């Protein structure tokens, strides 16, 4: 029965529009048999074979693309299909199968444990999982009318998705709050301590200090380390003490982070976005989204951010949110036990992650849609929206920075920009694209070197060396000494009365170009250190460093423009707007645009990037500058190097990710890619002539992850497809549970009515047989094949010739083929 539905639904999945009638017709059990629910509806009234074989045939036909609306049509097509294949008895075979299916109604419907799950490093079969969910949904709907309890269960099933994303949003917000507060406190621990309330960072410590005169640096409550020990504040001695403390704390934090990651959860290292992308595209990495990864990633992130390394916490926040999503999905079996459905929750969680990282809920949803998600139906869009909203709300109520916003570098702008400024903005976009590409290339080269050389054997030592270098070089320069978020805030801000910083000093005295000079040094330092930092074995993201790089460049360009306007306020390009007074150019705005440009160049995002940036600044009027910069940066970036950093890292690690952005441009055919190659045999199962021993031998001798089932070795007509894992589980289960099964028992994949009695009872495995595998002919161009793999999320597809089974194409074969044609090593694909 189940099986029967599976393949019926498989057909339905290919034409989702047809499935929309499901819920309406279910409510009237005696509706005419024109909908897909006919089987279920009829189940209560008894079994009618004549009706039952219709949907099956329909599924065969719909998969060829003919849509049918009524029973009469169907009968016509039935005639056609017979007349079209006069030389084969395929249709007869099919009707035999349909008869078999009818007898399955009485069979027990409880599953063999473990069926529908996947092994580590396997890809999931989206079609199969979605069909399973439909079946489950149908079952719930049918039971709904039986009792109140079932009604409640049905209601719970219906809202469990929303409930799950609600929890995910709540906990993501809390986790982000904890990380924000913890990281800002620990960052300031490098400089000093608040003796009266050690849990406060410097800003919070001085929060209510009532000092009328303000030198911008220190308040009496906050004690720097030299003050704690030697009571003095200025001079060479205290400077060296501060320097030492800075390095020591940085080393302590970094070593803790690296060793915690190594000890408890190695999967917590890195940014996590390439892996999340791969997982969302249908790959299984067990433990990557587990409890320990969550804890260690959060703690390690706090530690590595506070160590002052050139990394950010925004990317890993997406990973943390996905861990939370994964953990909560286990509370709801509908999502926890179905990998395809679980990915809907993970998509929503990724949105919540970006939402809390930047305080940008809409940007988060768009990020999930544009950058990480693979399968993104509208339902998921709404759930992501809700999840991002809840997470942002929770984080804002926690108010981690005391500024009523969820990010430290939130700025509010309301100054108009001149039309002419678009030109510097576009130039900034071009610079951003160049910096982004440069960064990607250098970082990839370094990562490849780390992977292949001896350096990779000393992960903790590497972290320590980079930390010492970072700390030693960073301290003397005040712009690199402060945390990267603070620097970004400083660069984004416009100069007002409250600014005592050097950055705003030049207006009064331009002869002092010290700040610009320091900024250039900071830029070079950040660029080089980030190249070596990203990819180390600590949790590290790269949004913040690239935003910072861009903000520095932007600010410098902005200062230049401002000086230009200040010196020559009347030239044509400022079109009278600067002639009235000062302040017609805002360098902070240039910093924002530059930040967007570099981030766009590194990640190749466009829409989500612009939305994130404008949610950060709260100014709708800057959308056009941001769009111009993002677009210019993407063009330049794509022209110089085709991949963004995440895709490049996916390629470096060889994750099995079929990018839907790439086009397949070669003219190969399915026959060139399919397994087995010439001179090799195709390992198959027959539907009713193999014994348990034969099957076990086949499982022992081969390593394929699935086997096609055919009618007989002679005819080679295809019946279906069975997965190795399911076969193993079913055999083990049968040996344990069923009596009389031994090595001589026949394994049959039909219902076994027309098989003559044997000495041993046969082992019926029809339940695990997928009777609707996707089939193509051997002359199908690979373009179509790759498209089908991408769009349907297939795991394998069967190749036929003249209606007979010829071979199998798996996702692995496709990925290897693509790599081969791109002149890369096909064996680098990580796959089981």
């Amino acid at each position, binding site marked *: 029965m189940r099986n029967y539905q599976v393949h019926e639904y498989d057909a339905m999945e290919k034409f989702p529009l047809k499935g929309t009638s499901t819920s309406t017709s279910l409510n009237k059990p005696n509706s005419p048999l024109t909908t897909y629910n006919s089987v279920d509806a009829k189940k209560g009234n008894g079994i009618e074979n004549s009706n039952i074989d219709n949907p099956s045939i329909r599924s065969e036909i719909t998969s060829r693309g003919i849509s049918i609306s009524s029973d009469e049509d169907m009968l016509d097509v039935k005639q056609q299909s017979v007349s079209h294949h006069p030389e084969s008895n395929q249709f007869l075979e099919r009707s035999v199968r349909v008869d078999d299916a009818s007898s399955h109604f009485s069979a027990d419907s409880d599953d063999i444990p473990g069926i529908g799950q996947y092994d580590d490093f396997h890809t999931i079969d989206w079609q199969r999982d979605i069909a399973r969910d439909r079946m489950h949904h149908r079952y719930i709907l049918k039971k709904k009318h039986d009792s109140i309890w079932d009604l409640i269960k049905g209601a719970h099933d219906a809202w469990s998705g929303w409930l799950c994303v609600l929890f995910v949003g709540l906990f993501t917000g809390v986790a982000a709050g904890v990380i924000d507060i913890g990281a800002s406190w620990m960052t300031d621990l490098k400089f000093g301590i608040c003796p009266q309330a050690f849990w406060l960072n410097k800003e919070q410590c001085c929060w209510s200090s009532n000092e009328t005169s303000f030198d911008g640096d220190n308040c009496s409550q906050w004690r720097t380390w030299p003050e704690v020990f030697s009571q003095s504040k200025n001079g060479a001695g205290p400077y060296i003490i501060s320097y030492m403390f800075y390095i020591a704390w940085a080393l302590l934090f970094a070593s803790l982070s690296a060793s915690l990651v190594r000890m408890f959860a*190695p999967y917590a*290292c*890195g940014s996590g976005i390439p892996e999340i992308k791969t997982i969302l595209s249908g790959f299984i990495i*067990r433990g990557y989204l587990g409890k320990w990864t969550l804890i260690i990633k959060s703690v390690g992130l*706090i530690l590595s951010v506070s160590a002052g390394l050139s990394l950010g916490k925004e990317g890993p926040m997406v990973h943390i949110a996905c861990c939370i999503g994964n953990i909560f999905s286990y509370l709801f079996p509908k999502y926890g036990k179905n990998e395809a459905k679980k990915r809907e929750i993970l998509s929503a969680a990724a949105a919540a992650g970006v939402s809390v990282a930047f305080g940008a809920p809409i940007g988060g949803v768009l990020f999930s849609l544009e950058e990480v998600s693979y399968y993104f139906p509208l339902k998921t869009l709404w759930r992501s929206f809700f999840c991002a909203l809840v997470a942002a709300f929770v984080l804002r109520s*926690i108010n981690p920075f005391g500024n009523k916003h969820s990010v430290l570098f939130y700025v509010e702008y309301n100054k108009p920009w001149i039309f002419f400024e678009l030109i510097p903005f576009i130039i900034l976009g071009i610079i951003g694209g160049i910096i982004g590409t440069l960064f990607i290339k250098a970082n990839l080269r370094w990562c490849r070197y780390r992977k292949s050389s001896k350096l990779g054997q000393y992960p903790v030592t590497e972290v320590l060396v980079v930390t010492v270098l970072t700390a030693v070089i960073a301290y003397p320069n005040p712009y690199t000494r402060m945390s990267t978020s603070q620097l970004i805030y400083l660069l984004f801000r416009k100069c007002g*009365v409250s600014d005592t910083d050097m950055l705003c000093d030049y207006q009064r005295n331009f002869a002092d170009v010290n700040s610009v000079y320091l900024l250039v040094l900071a830029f070079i330092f950040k660029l080089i250190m980030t190249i070596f930092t990203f990819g180390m074995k600590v949790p590290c993201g790269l949004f913040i460093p690239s935003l910072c790089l861009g903000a520095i460049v932007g600010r410098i360009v902005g200062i230049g423009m401002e000086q230009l306007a200040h010196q020559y306020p009347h030239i044509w390009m400022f079109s009278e707007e600067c002639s009235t007074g000062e302040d017609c150019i805002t360098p902070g705005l240039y910093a924002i645009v530059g930040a967007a440009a570099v981030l766009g160049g590194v990640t190749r995002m466009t829409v989500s990037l612009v939305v994130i940036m404008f949610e950060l600044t709260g100014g709708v009027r800057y959308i056009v500058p941001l769009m111009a910069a993002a677009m210019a940066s993407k063009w330049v970036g794509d022209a110089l190097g085709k991949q963004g950093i995440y895709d490049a890292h996916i390629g470096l690690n060889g994750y099995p990710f079929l990018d839907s952005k790439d086009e397949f441009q070669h003219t190969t055919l399915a026959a060139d890619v399919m397994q087995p190659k010439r001179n090799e045999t195709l390992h198959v199962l027959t539907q009713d002539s193999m014994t348990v021993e034969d099957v076990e031998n086949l499982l022992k001798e081969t390593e394929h992850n699935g086997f096609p089932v055919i009618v007989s070795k002679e005819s080679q007509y295809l019946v279906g497809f069975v997965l190795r894992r399911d076969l193993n589980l079913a055999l083990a289960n049968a040996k344990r549970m069923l009596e009389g099964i031994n090595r001589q028992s026949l394994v049959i994949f039909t219902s076994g009515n027309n098989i003559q009695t044997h000495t041993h009872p046969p082992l019926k495995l029809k339940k695990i047989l997928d009777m609707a595998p996707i089939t193509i002919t051997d002359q199908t161009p690979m373009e179509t094949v790759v498209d089908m793999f991408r769009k349907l999320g297939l795991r394998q597809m069967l190749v036929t010739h003249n209606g007979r089974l010829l071979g199998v194409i798996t996702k692995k074969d496709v990925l290897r083929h693509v790599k081969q044609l791109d002149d890369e090593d096909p064996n680098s694909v990580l796959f089981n």
Partner: protein
Amino acid sequence: MWKLFIANVLLIYFIQCKAQSYEDKRCKCICPSIASVLNTTSGDKNVLNFITNVPATKCNCEGVVLPKIGDKIKEKEQIFCPRCDCKYENRNTTIIKIVVIIVIWVISLLVIYMLFLICLEPLLNKRLHKATGGVGYQEHNNEEDDTSVAPGMSHAMGVRGNVLNRVGHQQDKWKRQVREQRRNIYDRHTMLN
């Protein structure tokens, strides 16, 4: 473990609750130095910074700045006040305190556990192995096979055994997973490079 540590946090919280001297609301006004506004050459160039605890509606130049330095600027309020920047802010020090204490707790627990795993456990294991011989290893193997075939089984078996055993099994399973992860990342470099 969680309960213990939440209890600890609460304990610390209640002990220290009374010591709290930091306010959660403030009105902060930043003004340029008087010298720069009044064009007097003398005086310091420092920016002025006023923080008081007044209601949100009174958080402006007139309510905060003038009472303090009104005599210095005299009739120049119209020039001085528009240049001041007043903001009403609030925060929650309790949340900050709890979070920081939790973070310290978690980090120290993890470090202690890590040190335990590095230093003490090899010693304990050595003693255990000497006592039981090869039997322990054999059992361990069987358990592994069971869990890999049927994930649901280990739990069912664990219910029958005592709690300690179950925790031990879980820990073994987790350790195996971590070892596998370590091999993937640090030795074979197949992932997360």
